[in-house]
């Protein structure tokens, strides 16, 4: 047990240590890595991962799971772009997009919470359905737009910082306050940590769990707009390629947290690490074919340190 405690205490340093040494190595070998505009590029590309990771983290810390968000982002994006092409005013497009995102996530929540279907089964199915719907609407075509709304987000800066970085910063601030500073956030943790205890403390468990899915719906809505802006339109299954990175970010954040729990800052730091890694590896001339392999090996490191921290390995030996 002594050993286990020592590992728990230091495991956050282990993960951070491994990742920082990788980053330091990249700083040394790749020129230009630390330049302001490169770092801004990194943060912009981290936005695609960080925003859904905050939503997923919220769902996971309240005891559930979601895979379907990648498909929902696709549906929201392609529908929005079709509406923009049909010259529907932007406010209407935005409201419809939000409604679609919330609708899908509340459907997930209904299946998982009310019908008690396993979250993996539920959201794999809704992911497939959403990806199918995305493809049916887009016919797998790239759909571009040069609408000023999206152009502004992509190219404008405020105080020298690109707008997508502001979007990430504001979303982070909102989610951070919501999850870590309000009673609502604390109740979400209680539901995920001990549902029976939460129920007995008089918390409205179902409503709380529904809300965590709604939070994900809002994250999906925001990130869809970033996708549409940054890619100047709709790219088929763009979000789907980031699925693993989102999940990785959440777990990464968990493994660096002191209490070994999922946190919003943790998820964002995780996303930034993944983005820095991909960027640094590319800059230092590593072929893009190898980047996934390296990322995958790092996931394994994260999972192992996590298992040590939660005492699972130790319990087996007892």
């Amino acid at each position, binding site marked *: 047990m002594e050993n286990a405690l020592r590992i728990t205490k230091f495991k956050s340093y282990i993960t951070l240590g491994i990742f920082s040494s990788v980053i330091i190595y990249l700083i040394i070998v790749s020129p230009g890595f630390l330049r302001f505009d490169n770092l801004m590029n990194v943060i912009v590309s981290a936005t695609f991962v960080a925003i859904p990771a905050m939503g997923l983290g919220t769902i996971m810390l309240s005891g559930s799971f979601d895979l379907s968000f990648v498909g929902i982002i696709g549906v929201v994006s392609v529908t929005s772009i079709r509406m923009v092409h049909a010259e529907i005013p932007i406010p209407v497009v935005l409201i419809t997009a939000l409604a679609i995102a919330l609708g899908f996530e509340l459907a997930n929540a209904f299946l998982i919470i009310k019908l008690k279907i396993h979250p993996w089964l539920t959201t794999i199915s809704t992911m497939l359905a959403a990806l199918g719907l995305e493809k049916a609407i887009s016919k797998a075509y790239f759909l571009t737009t040069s609408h000023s709304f999206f152009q502004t987000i992509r190219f404008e800066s405020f105080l020298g910082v690109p707008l997508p970085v502001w979007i990430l910063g504001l979303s982070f601030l909102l989610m951070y*306050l919501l999850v870590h500073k309000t009673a609502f956030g*604390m109740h979400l*943790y*209680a539901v995920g*940590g*001990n549902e029976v*205890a939460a129920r*007995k*403390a*008089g918390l409205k468990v179902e409503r709380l769990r529904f809300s965590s899915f709604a939070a994900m719906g809002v994250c999906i809505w925001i990130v869809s707009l970033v996708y549409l802006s940054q890619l100047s339109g709709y790219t088929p299954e763009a979000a789907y390629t980031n699925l693993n990175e989102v999940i990785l970010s959440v777990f990464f954040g968990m493994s660096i947290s002191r209490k070994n729990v999922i946190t919003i800052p943790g998820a964002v730091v995780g996303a930034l690490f993944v983005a820095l890694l991909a960027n640094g590896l590319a800059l230092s001339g590593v072929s893009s074919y190898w980047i996934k392999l390296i990322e995958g090996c790092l996931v394994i490191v994260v999972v192992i340190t996590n298992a040590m921290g939660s005492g699972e390995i130790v319990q087996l030996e007892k």
Partner: protein
Amino acid sequence: MNESLLNMKGITKRFPGILALDSVDFDVPKGEIRAIVGKNGAGKSTLIKILTGIYTPDSGSVEIEGKHFSHITPDVMYSEGIQAIYQENDLVSYFTVGESIMLNNESRGTVRAFIDRRDMNEKAHQLLLGKIGIDIDPRKLIRDLSVSEKQLVQIAKALVREPKIMIFDEPTAPLSAKEIDKLFEIIRGLRSHGITIIYISHRFEEIFEIADSITIMRDGKKIVDLNLKETNEDEIISHMTGGNMQVASRSEGEKRRVSDEITLEVENLESERVNKISFSLYKGEVLGLFGAEGAGQVELVRAFYGLLPKRGKIKLNGKETHIRKPTDAIRKGIGYVPRDRKEESLVRTFTLAENVTLSHLNAFSPGGFVNKKSELEMADQMIKDLAISTRSAKTVVSFLSGGNQQKVAIARWLAFPLKILILDYPTMGVDVQAKLEIYRLLKKISSEGTSIIIITPEYEEIKMLCDRVMILKDGQHRATLDVKDIDEDILLKHAIGSSGSVVS
């Protein structure tokens, strides 16, 4: 003092196949400590679950301070000030002490939407210090606390809501003597603040020390309320058992004589909850293992079987042996049927035949491949011998009834010669017919020379099946008695009574 705070009338709760509560009336005055006792399945926990809103009664009414409640949910009962402190702790392990105590009662900061953790910690600390008299840092994580500290945090958490009724469910089980004294001091303090206490326990010493009155339940009915100053252990026990039940013991019925050849001797076995227990087991004997829930009987057999770390000496047929893991035990001809057949005993997705051969699969696998034909032959034999009702040996085991699943779990051990069979409450949740068949089967196995150790909380089962019964209390060996000499009162007196010495 005599105004009734809680008044439950005609509470009935039915579960499939069981009448858990049969028109129970239960009322407690304000500021009283009321103990509830009853045997396993008497209805204590169902009553508490109705009171805390976890179950909804089929009929009956609940009144608190004269206010009638028809729709009972955990929310309603919680806000009415009914708080339960359970044995298994109701805390989130990665919350701090302050967060746990103030959960759903958070302090608000200057911006009303946000919580003020510093204020929460201060309030929690004051509560712990002032009302409970213990100094715990509110920033500590729950998972870093001792069992007793966790319990005190739970009490503090309950006190935040200024409860009218607090329920303690076997609160002293994990505590040391000193911690128990402290807890009783706290409970008395609560009473002096006008809080009504419902105290569930099977430890008579404690009940007489802490409670004012006692409610005795049996078979889903409330038998009587007694003032503890005007009663004694014997009276309570006879209410719990309902007088002497006429059950013929096995030795009387069969005129049987167990051989005096000793199969197993255990000396000073120590493990988690097991305190230096020694016993012996004769060839072909059925030894019952009885005690209140958590008295150490399950840990005793698990330690013996190599599932828990242990110290002590084990002699099998006079020869000292070491059992470090279940495979050691199996190799020496010892089988174990755990209580939870779904989780620990059977592989639900396997067929009947596959479950029967699981522990001895090597014997059915010459050359490394399982010989399905001989596996099926063995299973068919077992189906016939044990009268398992199934369509075939290839039926997936989860489609069988509970009683038949239990037979399959037993059959696993009968494929090869067996010296000792250990069973943990094998008739739990099976119907009467299957129960009798399991008895018949166990009698047959034992008369063929296999010794049996059976954990059971049922007096009738001990009387009908066992030759001797070993009684444990708090991990200690209280008595081993010849079953033909006992009645239920004697059994309970040893298992939960305060008198009586420890067998060493």
